[in-house]
């Protein structure tokens, strides 16, 4: 089960990275700060996703959650206060914005489930 959750986390994180890389390649790389941020998000997401599949430690799961949470925070800021002078509305660009949000929420859910399961197993091991 944990292996499945880990791989699911990796797939969703890689999906988010792919969508950011796609947007970066198709225009966003010209946007100051946002362009480089998309590049870093995509590259880090691919790296962490690969290492998760290879069986990386819990620190990488936290990194995956951090990347997903950071991307979601950027999404919210860009649709409210603006982010480094960059602003967008709703789920534009479609369909990347919606798919990316769904992927990142899924990463947070999967990592949450992994952490809950680990804590439960630890409590049981301590009790025994």
């Amino acid at each position, binding site marked *: 089960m944990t292996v499945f959750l880990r791989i699911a986390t990796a797939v969703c994180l890689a999906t988010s990275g792919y969508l950011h*890389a796609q947007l*970066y*390649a*198709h*225009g*966003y*790389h*010209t*946007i*100051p700060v*946002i362009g480089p941020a998309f*590049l*870093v998000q*995509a*590259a*880090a997401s*691919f*790296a*962490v996703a*690969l*290492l998760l599949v290879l069986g*990386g*430690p*819990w*620190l*990488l799961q936290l*990194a995956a959650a951090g990347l997903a949470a950071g991307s979601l925070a950027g999404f919210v800021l860009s649709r409210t206060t*603006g982010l480094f*002078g*960059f*602003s*967008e*509305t709703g789920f*534009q*660009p479609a369909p990347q914005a919606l798919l990316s949000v769904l992927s990142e929420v899924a990463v947070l859910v999967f990592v949450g489930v992994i952490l809950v399961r*680990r804590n439960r197993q*630890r409590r049981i091991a301590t009790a025994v």
Partner: protein
Amino acid sequence: MTEDDHSPEGMTRRQLLRHTAWFGAAVVLTVAGGEVISRVAGPGEALADDDPNALRFVQVSDSHLGFKGSANTAVEASFSRALGQINALGRRPDFVMHTGDLTHLSTAAQFDQVRQMMSTLDTGYTFTVPGEHDSIDDAGQKYRKIFGAGTAGDGWYSFDVKGVHFIALVNTLNLEKLGHLGPDQLEFVRKDVAKLGSDTPIVVFSHIPLFAMYPAWGWGTDDAAQALSYLRRFSSVTCLNGHVHQLFTKTEGNITFHSATTTAYPLPQPGTRPAPTPVTLPAGKLADALGIREVTYRAGQPGLAVKDVKLA
């Protein structure tokens, strides 16, 4: 102590080494992945600086020559620094575009001063579009007398450089609250782009934003949607504007909007003050809010590279 990764007692030496190795692998893979993605996104883009065939132009905006106030007590000196910075660029730009509010009060002396100052630019051409400060009392007549040669209607025009089609619009006349293009200019845009292939990169200059940046302060153009509808079929459309005295970027489908900063004085961020009046910054901070914009384009790239540079 056990090998448990999450041991409350802390990590063993072996665990620490393992974590360090994983972390190192993550960093190395991230750097390598970033390199691959950037190459896929823009092969050879890094070479654009050295490419003699690349298009290069500079946008300056809102010089407000003649402004007197605590927000900048020497706008002429600031504009002069901006022009010097352009002349000091490594490569001579193909042209320099001033996106309006050249003057503060549209006086003949101010127009003459800005014309003389811009004539010192080391560039192929200088272009302008008017701001509302350039047409205060005469609907832009003094502006067009000096800068309107070869333009159509109230001063709009288009031109081509190195495969990119440029459209310079006037949305500061017939102002009520928002910018306005009017039916004649909309028809000009429709006819102007009708003959172009959809893969032609388009750049549109205007003073007031063509997107709704903050309509409560008039930072938008009421009939821009009609003009932009003619540009939807193009793969790359970049709209560059001034007026708001601050950097702001927004994308809507195939169109990317870039608001430029000023060479004169900053305005508040949208909605942070009751009105868009000049902001006086602490001593020494003004230059950080002023700047110029370098834009490069290399044939085959998906879009233009926009680089905003603070006033040196």
